[in-house]
């Protein structure tokens, strides 16, 4: 079953790439802050819509 070796080889390679990426992410402080990124992504709207979306958020907050 040489195909199995090939697949395990490639799968492990992919896993190793991801492992390196994971270690880098942890080391470089990507995951130090596990809260603000989720808020920050809500605020990338274009300028002319800013007031609009901010209102939305305020409304939602008051609903909570």
């Amino acid at each position: 079953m040489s195909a199995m070796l090939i697949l395990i080889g490639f799968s492990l390679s992919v896993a190793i790439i991801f492992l390196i990426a994971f270690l880098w992410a942890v080391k470089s402080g990507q995951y130090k802050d596990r809260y603000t990124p989720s808020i920050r992504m809500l605020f990338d709207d274009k300028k002319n819509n800013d007031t609009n979306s901010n209102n939305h958020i305020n409304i939602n907050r008051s609903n909570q």
Partner: protein
Amino acid sequence: MNIEKFSYDNQIVRLFILATVIWGIVGMTVGVLIAFQIYLPWLNFDLQYTTFGRMRPLHTNAVIFAFVGNAIFAGVYYSLQRLTKARMFSDVLSKINFWGWQLIIVAVAITYTLGITTSKEYAEAEWPIDIMIALVWVAFGVNMIGTLMKRREKHMYVAIWFYIATFVTVAVLHIVNSFELPVSLFKSYSVFAGVQDALVEWWYGHNAVAFFLTTPYLGLMYYYLPKAANRPVYSYRLSILHFWSLIFLYIWAGPHHLLYSALPNWAQSLGTVFSIMLIAPSWGGMLNGLLTLRGAWDRVRDDAVLKFYVVAVTAYGMSTFEGPMLSLKNVNALAHFTDWIPAHVHIGTLGWNGLLTFGMLYWLVPKMWNTKLFSNKLATAHFWIATLGMVVWVVPMYWSGLTQSLMWKEFTPLGVLQYPNFLETVLQIVPMYIIRSIGGSLYLTGAIVMIYNLVKTAKQGSFTANEDTEAPAMEKAGGDNKKSHRWIEKRPIQFAIVSTVVILIGGLVEFIPTWLIKSNIPTIESVKPYTPLELEGRDLYIRESCNSCHSQLVRPFRSETERYGEYSKAGEFVYDHPFLWGSKRTGPDLHRIGGKYSNMWHYLHMQDPRQMSPGSLMPKYSWLIEQQLDTDIISTKINAMRSLGVPYEEGYENEALNDLQLQAQEIADDLLESGIIVEPDREIIALIAYLQRLGTDIKVKQAENE
């Protein structure tokens, strides 16, 4: 702080949105067509170009790679720019990505219709298209990574991680599954054979679901769901945790597609174990998506976009629970090869991919055209039509899958099959096929309603091709890092690329020797290579995609050995480049068909199946009788097979044509005796030769032993 002015490229997103919508309609329309064809054979129009076997791969590829593929690009190109606070790395690469992808889709549509196919599910494209796919995919990856490198936001939001995983893994999957040896511009043979080919194909097939239909869509969910709900994701910590566990687990679960096959048992069990483990990270994603809406469920009542997301994420949860259940051997024994599997797949595609795409489009188009959605009511109507369509699609298919499977396995008290005639079990489920086709039509209708709504929305707004914006430049990494790690930490992405290339080269080095040495699958002495005529017949079987509806794998169950004959052994497939096990039994298994019927029976059956099996749903293949067999490259084919390890003698390529004609004459003579006059150079002769050969090798051995 240094504020930089730049603009987002909306034009490329608009193009991808257009392509998503157009190909979505095309792909779904073909889907509806084949849903009708399956119970109305006349809808095949007696034309080879529109026959079910060729239309089914067209449908799957169109909805997966054209509809979902373009939706991924649209979603990624919009969100990536905003998440990184940067314009796409290169407008040229964006354009290459877009036009290249559309060119691939058109090439796929044309070649599949013409019967140019590798027969490997979800990867039927022939080798020139495979190369194009690899190049365009790399253009996408370079564009994405380039954007990440010039990002102005240091933190990479979780959606970006899902996009990166998608790019890396799909690239590797596509390349490995496309190892094939060309014999002409439009024909190649998989370098793997039989069981090995099956394993590679389902490693690819399973992970294509994982990394083309799942991870990019989870990324899209993490961007577009919080955006539409205007609240942060329920738990950012959970999103990171389930991302990493998902990608580490997914890649090992492929063998669950081959339970009870000739694959070694330990590999089957490995696939099952990893599949069960996958429930945790999959449900992590589903719960995170749904819980994002906690405290905002009142908005789901009014907002059509959120409605789509809620059902999409729920469908994701359902199919990721069902998947592991189907990979349990006892459940799989019942469900495999039946309509249960398309039902499972369509929960995922119609529900998760389709509805999430619709929701995303309803949110994106008003945003990009600076206006409000033309009609929230119409969007809500679309939501209900689509959801109803999905239910009407899947419920009858669960029903029919279960019904047919139980009929296949039913024995009388005397111990013989209750329904020995396969056709009887097919006719039983025709009403379910009818209902399914209504479900599909409903779903398509919903998509058409969406187009109207989106066009109206775009018309009332004004589109900004380049959206001006500004953001502070990213702070450069501090100088307190250790020197030895600096290069890697500053250039994680270059590092990832370099290691990918290195690993790919390493993989090739590992691969070539194993290709050259003989496989260690137990060989069966009596299994011999195909004769030239059988080989040509096999290529016709591939051209017509007979494996869309017929399996070639008898599983070791009494209900199957009674019906079809001896169960399939790994050693019987060692010369099968590519394997043709199939994944669905719309018609009966064909692995032991050889010698079961006369040549005349096959001839008349291909001419019009209803002559031999009244009520059969199989299309006519009458052109096989009219068309002349193309034997021009038979010696190239023999040479190619030999270099893949098939033991044709040196120099046999010169005798092949002669042998082919002799065998064809024999079959033509036999047909003549039965009163059928046919030239020996017709395609039907080659196909009959192949069908009569199927599964007979070990019968020879048994006969000798007796």
